[in-house]
C-alpha cells in the first residue's frame, strides 16, 4: 500500500510541476503583454528624442546603505 501511495505521490508531484511551469509561463506572458507593453509604449512616447550620453553623476551613499537590498 505504501508503495502505491508513493507512486501516486510521485506522479502527482510531476504533474504539479508541469502544470506549475505552464501556469507560470501563462501568467508571466500575460503580465508581459498587459502591463509591460503599455508601459513600454508610454515610455517610448515620453522619451522620444532623448539620448543620454557622457558620465552620469553618482549619488553619495545614504545612511544605512549596507542594510538595504536597493
Amino acid at each position: 500500500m505504501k508503495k502505491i501511495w508513493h507512486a501516486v505521490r510521485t506522479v502527482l508531484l510531476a504533474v504539479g510541476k508541469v502544470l506549475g511551469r505552464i501556469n507560470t509561463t501563462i501568467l508571466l506572458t500575460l503580465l508581459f503583454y498587459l502591463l509591460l507593453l503599455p508601459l513600454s509604449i508610454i515610455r517610448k512616447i515620453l522619451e522620444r528624442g532623448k539620448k543620454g550620453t557622457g558620465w552620469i553623476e553618482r549619488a553619495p551613499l545614504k545612511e544605512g546603505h549596507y542594510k538595504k537590498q536597493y
Partner: protein
Amino acid sequence: MARVLGISAFYHDSAACLVENGQVVAALQEERFSRLKHDSSFPSRAVEAALRMGGCAIDELDGVVFYEKPFMKLERLLDTYVRNCPRGLASYLKAMPVWFKEKLWIKELIRRELGFDGPILFADHHESHAASAFFPSPFQSAAVLTLDGVGEWTTTSLGRGQGTRIELISEVRFPHSLGLLYTAFTYYLGFRVNSGEYKVMGLAPYGEPRYEGLIRDHLIHVGDDGSFRLDTRYFSYETGLRMTSRRFHELFGGPPRRPGSPLTDKHKDIAASIQKVTEDVVLRICRHLRRESGEKFLCMAGGVALNCVANGKVLREAGFEDLWIQPAAGDAGGALGAALAVSHAHLGQERRTGGGTTGSRWNALLGTSYDADEIQPVLDGYGAVYERLDESSLIARTVEALDRGAVVGWFQGRMEFGPRALGSRSILADARRPDIKDRINAGVKYRESFRPFAPAVLEESVADYFKLDRPSPYMLLVADVRDDRNGSIPAVTHVDGSARVQTVSADDNARFYRLLRGFGSRTGCPVLLNTSFNVRGEPIIESPEQAYQCFMRTGLDLLVIGDFLLEKEKQPSGLEIAGVGGVQTRDRGARE
C-alpha cells in the same frame, strides 16, 4: 574582534572571503571545490573552507555581506524589458522564474545556507569592485576605476579612495558596457561568454585591426573623456539569449564562428580590432580620470581589468605614476571587496595598506594549503611512488628536471585567489625551449595552439628580460621582451614580441622564488614558463588528490607537491585514475 564574511554568487565565479579586523584571512572560489569552471552557485564549500582557515564558527561572524544589491538588479532587468517590449519575451520567461524563486530572496537564502542569524548586508556591485581594488592596494590615496559587463546598473565607474573611504563619483550605465562589447565579440568569435575573453586577447596579436573603423563607425561612440555609448541595435544581450544581433552579423559579413571550427585570418583581424578599440577606450577613461581626480596612482578592478594588454598601455601612457590591479579583478573579487567595504566603511576597522603590515605587498595566496601529513596519505592511497626531500634537494632535483625539458606540476603552499596561477598551483617548464609551448598546449593542457604562456621571472631580473621597470606580481601587465633578449625565451614570447609578466620575490612566494633563483643559477636564465595547474575546461586544481589525478592523466613529467617529488616514469603502470585531468567542458558560467 570584527569578522565579516563576503559572498559573491549567482552570476559567475562565486566566491567567499573572510576578513578579520580589516585583514583578509581567506578568500576562495567555489569552482575549485565543485570542479565546475566559473561556478555561479552558492559558495557553500568556499565558505566552509574560509571559516575553517579562520578558526571561526558561523555565529562568531559580525556580518555576512553580499556583493551586490539584488533589488536594484531586478529593477534594471524589468526596466530593460519595459524599454524593449514587445521584444525580449523569451529572455523574460527564462529570467523571471529564477528571480521570483531564488534571486529575490537572497537574504533568506544566505540565512538558510549558512544557518546565520546575524546581520546580512549588501554592497553595491561596483562598490565591491572598487573596494577590492583600493583597500588592498599600497596607496593611501588613489583614483579608482571599475570596468565590467554590468553590475546593478553600472558598467563603468570612476571614483577616489582615501584611507578607509571610497567614493564613486560618476558612471556609465547599462546597456552601454565596454565589458559586454568585448564579450559580444567573444561570442561572435565562437568562444564561451564570460570565460573565453582572454582567448580573444591571446588571438589579437595574430591579426591586423582591419575592422577598427567599422567598430568605431557603427558599434561604439567614444567621447574625448572616455565616456562611451553603444548602438544597441547591433546587440541582443538586452533582450535575447544571444550576444549579437542579425545586424551585427551583416556588418561583419556572416554568422558567428561555430565553436571548434577553424580560426581564419578574418577572425584574427576581428580579435585585433576589438582589442585595439578596448585599449583605446580604457586609455581615454584613465586619462580623463587622471585629469579629473588629480591623483597620482590608479587602482582598477572589474572583468575588463583582467585585460593585461590594456593594463600595460595604461601603465605606460595614462599619466599615472603607478597602477595597482587586484588579482581577482572579476566577480570572484566582489566577495573580497564587499567584505572589505563593510569592514572599513561600515564597521570602521583600521586599514593597513597592502593588506598586511604597512608598506608590505598584497599577497594573492589566500586559499587552502596542505601539509605533509595530509599529502602523504593521499599519495599512499593511490600507491604512488614518491620521494620525500628536504627543500634544497627538492629544488635542485626540480631545477635539473626543468633544465632537461621536463614539464612540472608544482603544488606548494596556499592556493591563489583569482584566475592566475602564481606559483602555488602551477605547471612549470623551461622558457628557453621553442618546442615546449606546443608540447604543453597539445599534450598537457589540451588547448588551442595559438594561446600563449606567461613567464615568471625573478623580480630583480625583470628589467633584464622585459621592457618593464617595476614589479608585476599578479601577472596582470603585458610588456615587450627586450630586443636583446629576442628569441632567448621563445616559449613565453607571444607572436608580437610581448609577454604577460609575473615577477616573483621572496616575500610573495619564498619557495617559488628559490626555485627560480636555482634555475637562474644553473642556466643563467631566471625565467620559467608558468601556467595554471589544470587542463582546458577545468578549474585550477585545489587538493593533492586532484594534483595527482591531473599528473597521471596528462603529459606532465614530474609532480612536486609539498616536500614530495614524483616522477611519471616511476609510477605504477596500469593505474586507473579517474577525476581531474580529463578533457571536460562542463562550464556553468550562468547568464541572467
